[in-house]
């Protein structure tokens, strides 16, 4: 009788433990379908890199194979003032790095099928070198831009977190501020570039920037990027989420 009780208890304990560990395993291994959704969000960078790889592949094999077609790289400086770093998820104030000069936009490679009798190897080398340099520059610029956009997202978050909209805020209002920063991330000055017409709203935007005060993370930026994008910064405030 004692033995049978012992047996039944040990069976019970085993069954119970097995059941619980099975439940835990199920929960841990199949926790939430949102995993994939979350992962899908930030792949912006990958795209940019893919484009760049493609271009790199083009000019290389050309000079080796045949001396005739001459790759000529024409880096066209296209200052494209990129407007606002994309609509951020629930963006209220838009951070707009002032006049993002996209220095080199896509070195265009044009193979010219001009038949030339003698292979002008020196000139070709030079061309190749300049093409590579342009490539490099383009890469750096791309990288800088990514960096800048992630840091402007950080500034945006900080400012948005500190922004208290006045009750008089209405949809469609927009105030544009220009802020000056130093490389330590310290705020030097704030000025209104374009007023919304509502003094309270303008003031609230200004106060939000003042409250955010210091953007410590900017210290991590290389000075070049800072000078280019963050020395002077334009912020646009819009009460988009208000239903008025």
């Amino acid at each position, binding site marked *: *009788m004692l033995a049978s009780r012992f047996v*039944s*208890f040990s*069976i*019970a*304990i085993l*069954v*119970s*433990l097995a*059941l*619980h560990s099975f*439940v835990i395993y199920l*929960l*841990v291994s199949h*926790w*939430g379908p*949102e*995993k994939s959704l*979350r*992962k899908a969000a*930030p792949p912006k960078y990958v795209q940019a890199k893919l484009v760049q790889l493609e271009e790199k592949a083009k000019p290389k094999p050309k000079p080796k194979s045949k001396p005739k077609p001459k790759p000529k790289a024409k880096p066209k400086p296209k200052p494209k003032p990129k407007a606002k770093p994309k609509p951020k998820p*629930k963006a209220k104030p838009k951070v707009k790095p002032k006049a993002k000069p996209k220095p080199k936009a896509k070195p265009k490679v044009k193979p010219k099928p001009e038949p030339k009798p003698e292979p002008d190897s020196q000139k070709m080398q030079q061309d190749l070198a300049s093409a590579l340099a342009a490539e490099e520059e383009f890469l750096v610029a791309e990288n800088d831009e990514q960096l800048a956009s992630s840091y402007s997202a950080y500034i945006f978050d900080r400012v*948005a*977190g*500190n*922004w*208290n909209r006045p009750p008089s805020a209405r949809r469609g209002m927009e105030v544009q501020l220009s802020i000056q920063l130093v490389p330590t991330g310290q705020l030097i000055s704030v000025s209104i570039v374009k007023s919304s017409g509502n003094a309270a709203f303008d003031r609230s935007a200004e106060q939000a920037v003042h409250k955010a005060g210091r953007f410590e993370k900017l210290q991590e930026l290389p000075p070049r990027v800072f000078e280019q994008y963050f020395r002077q910064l334009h912020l646009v405030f819009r009460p988009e989420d208000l239903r008025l």
Partner: protein
Amino acid sequence: MTEQLSLWSLIADATILVQFVMLLLFVASIISWVMIVQRGLYLRTASRNLRQFEDNFWSGVDLNELYHDSGNQTTAEGLTSVFRAGFREFNRLTQQSSADPEAVMEGTERSMRVALSREEEKLNRSLPFLASVASVSPYIGLFGTVWGIMNAFRGLANVQQATLATVAPGISEALIATAMGLFAAIPAVLAYNRYSASADSVFSGYETFAEEFSSILHRRVHSN
């Protein structure tokens, strides 16, 4: 909060109290499952033994033979022990020449009642535990949840612009406590209801048998 919320991180990040509540519920769930399985086995064997013994008893076997076949007192289980208690007392009393039939029947019935109540206790053992788990663990889980949500909102008070993302992890981790409470409670409720019903039916089988047996003994006492 860019990394995905894993179950484990939710539990690990919870406050001590909530973690304690979760641990408590988890242990309660494990123990209640041990009880569920053990009681299930016990009640199944008990009702099988009841049927077997009754078949055996009504097959016309000699009572003395049955008494000797049923082993000794310590190993007797269920209906066997009721039968043995009654029969032994009956034999002892009838061997005393002075005993009158009423006293013999009274003593026999009393000793069978004792054996019956012992069996009843065995049948209902650990059912109260299941009942407590069933009724209390949702409350414990709810307490953990309320506490966790309280903390989440208190943390929210320091933030200027509250977004869903700032409260969501806190609430999510708090809700785990309720889920665990329900997880522990639901099987316990089901098992309690089922087992108390089957314990009742087994016990009423015992009682019926005791009555029948005492009526047989009664006939025997008065025929002498």
